[in-house]
């Protein structure tokens, strides 16, 4: 029972990441009709916003201690981050909270990246076939990856969660269950954060006039255009928002998985499966499928299941995708007419 509960939590956590990436993917597809293979790279760029911000904060004051020598004969270096040297304990706290604080940096940076990506490249491919869009965005993803690899190296760069949430929460004790149900605080924070972002995107589209116009544009951009609304500009902003959502998912994921240049690709394939299972162009479908597949993947790696079906944890997502597409060709919540012309 404890094991099932823990795997359920794992599933929610993984599902949160899948859903956030898939949400942006399907938002771009629904509004602009573009299949964006560079979306995983945006997730990775978000994570590297956190890395860059942390590097900036950890820029060190190096003092040589001539009285002590290293094993290779040079003076021992005493390194203190400038921020600690200047601001003392306050500086230490800022460094400690660098991941959550970097959200503030990531929002404008990702918005800018998203908007320039759309205006600079993607908009030229609106009227081109989906195959062209896939090729150009995939190419872009590889370019972004290589640029990151060039500047940050190929190795993962660990980022730590703030001390206060670096341990684990004894959920079992809270719920009056077994003491064995402990779960890392940061993963709980991540789940809460993804729920918050998903809620905010839905609220924006559902309850604001801007969102209403965007939704109308998703249904029939021609009519919206005839009403005198510059729907293209709004779609550019939507692309920017999708980039911010992917970026924030990346920022908050860094304490769970040390980021490297390839992390976007690792998530991209899964996120596409999530979008297809959820139904192309369906926002709620993407979220539902994200959580569903995350939870299924976690359950499939339980020892009781892998002992009967070895390796099932590796293929479960694709297996479910095949079954769903065979029985429901438009995915769980796909609309009629999307990608069917």
């Amino acid at each position, binding site marked *: 029972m404890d094991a099932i509960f823990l795997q359920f939590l794992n599933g929610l956590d993984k599902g949160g990441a899948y859903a956030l990436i898939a949400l942006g993917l399907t938002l771009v597809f629904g509004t602009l009709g573009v299949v964006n293979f560079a979306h995983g790279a945006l997730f990775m760029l978000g994570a590297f916003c956190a890395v860059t911000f942390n590097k900036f904060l950890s820029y060190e004051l190096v003092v040589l201690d001539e009285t002590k020598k290293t094993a290779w004969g040079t003076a021992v270096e005493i390194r203190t981050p400038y921020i600690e040297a200047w601001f003392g304990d306050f500086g230490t706290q800022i460094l400690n909270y660098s991941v959550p604080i970097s959200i503030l940096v990531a929002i404008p940076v990702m918005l800018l990246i998203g908007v320039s990506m759309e205006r600079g490249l993607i908009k030229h491919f609106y009227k081109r076939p989906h195959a062209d869009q896939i090729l150009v965005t995939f190419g872009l993803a590889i370019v972004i990856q290589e640029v990151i690899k060039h500047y940050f190296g190929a190795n993962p760069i660990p980022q730590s969660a703030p001390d206060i949430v670096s341990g684990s929460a004894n959920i079992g004790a809270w719920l009056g269950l077994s003491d064995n*149900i402990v779960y890392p605080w940061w993963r709980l924070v991540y789940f809460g954060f993804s729920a918050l972002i998903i809620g905010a995107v839905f609220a924006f589209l559902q309850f604001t006039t801007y969102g209403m116009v965007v939704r109308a544009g998703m249904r029939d951009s021609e009519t919206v255009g005839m009403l005198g609304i510059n729907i293209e500009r709004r779609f550019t902003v939507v692309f920017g928002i999708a980039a911010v959502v992917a970026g924030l998912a990346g920022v908050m994921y860094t304490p769970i998985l040390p980021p490297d240049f390839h992390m976007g690709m690792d998530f991209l394939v899964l996120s596409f499966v999530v979008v297809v299972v959820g139904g192309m162009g369906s926002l709620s479908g993407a979220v539902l499928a994200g959580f569903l597949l995350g939870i299924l993947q976690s359950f499939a790696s339980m020892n009781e299941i892998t002992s009967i079906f070895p390796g099932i944890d590796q293929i479960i997502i694709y297996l479910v995708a095949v079954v769903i597409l065979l029985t429901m060709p438009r995915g769980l919540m796909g609309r009629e007419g999307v990608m069917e012309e």
Partner: protein
Amino acid sequence: MSRLTMTRRGLLKAGAASGVALAAPMSFIRGAHAADFCNMPTGSSVTLGFNVPQTGAYADEGADELRAYKLAVKHLNGEGDGGMLNTFTSKALKGNGVLGKKVEYVTGDTQTKSDAARASAKRMIEKDGAIMITGGSSSGVAVAVQGLCQETGVIFMAGLTHSNDTTGKDKKRYGFRHFFNAYQSGLALGPILADQLGKERSAYHLTADYNWGWTQEESIKNTTEGLGWNTVNAVRTPLGAGDFSQYLTPVLNSGADVLILNHYGKDMVNSLTQAVQFGMRAKQVNGKDFEIVVPLFSRLMAQGAGENIKGILGTTNWNWSLQDAGSTAFVKSFGQEYGFPPSQAAQTCYVQTLLYADACERAGTFAPPQVIAALEGFEFDGMGNGKTLYRAADHQCMKDVLVVRGNENATSQFDLLEVVKIVPRDQVTYDPAIFGGDLGPADAKAC
């Protein structure tokens, strides 16, 4: 009009010359032939092929291996302070290259994938004329490249590879390993585990699902079960899984009180970090403190895992804090060159390059059969691991093994491992027959 005439004297001369040619030993003629063995150096230089992971899960190790190779080349060519050439007991190398030829090198990226590693080794052999291939930070890669080297007749000096198979069931006449193996980790770690964690423990293994992981799991399982420990479960995880949460949560309810991570590199950094996030180091099970053991770890991994490595037991091939003459000479050269100390991967690669060069000098030729013979059964010292034997039966070096613990009181950012015990060579020496395998022939091959 000319006529072909043959005098009696001319016939006798021609007959004598043919007789001498036919009577000459075959090896004399073969040695004079340019294509006698693969990539025989003909100019004033000799090319070595450094095949290391520059991307992928073991890229950290790969980068450090490459630094060590470049340093070894410098020292062989008489540049720099000479490093371990000054402490190596064999004095055949003079700092004038190898057999008077300047050492040059080419590099390849194994990408930590067997097919990519074979392709880059093949390229270095066929296009760049590499006479020896060395490197690799994964046993899957080492076994694959070693097989290729046996086929092409090019000596392979393995870098960081810890699987029993490299010098066990997959051993090859053309392959040599200086690094220790999983079986030796088990032999070295067993008594320390019994001493520090007791004899009544329940272990749960998480194992990287490839050649090295399997052999390490088997070796450590045999050792711990020999101590009286119970193995609760052994779960295979895909290489580069990233998020290990779904494999870690079952450990919490399994009744195990020790988690053994048969992971290396990026996988180990992730799984250890996440295990600590799941509260495993603060946990008590069966009335004992929950413990994590990482049978193979290195300083580079300790650096990636940060605080989480503190107090964790494991084994390592070498550590820069050792105070013998060879280690201090190497740390000094490497530190002066790069500004930080070398890793165990760097040390094994540096030593392998020197050992190959030394064997060529002692053999007086680059011809692989003679170089192989010079390496087989070679005893040496002064390379940082105490008295070492390159065992002829399986081409595995027999030397001391270090049991280490993540340093609780690090004095610098590099002082991450504390040596608990230097386990002497005779305690980690085993019968080469237990793993089977066949070295195969040492015949020279043209390429």
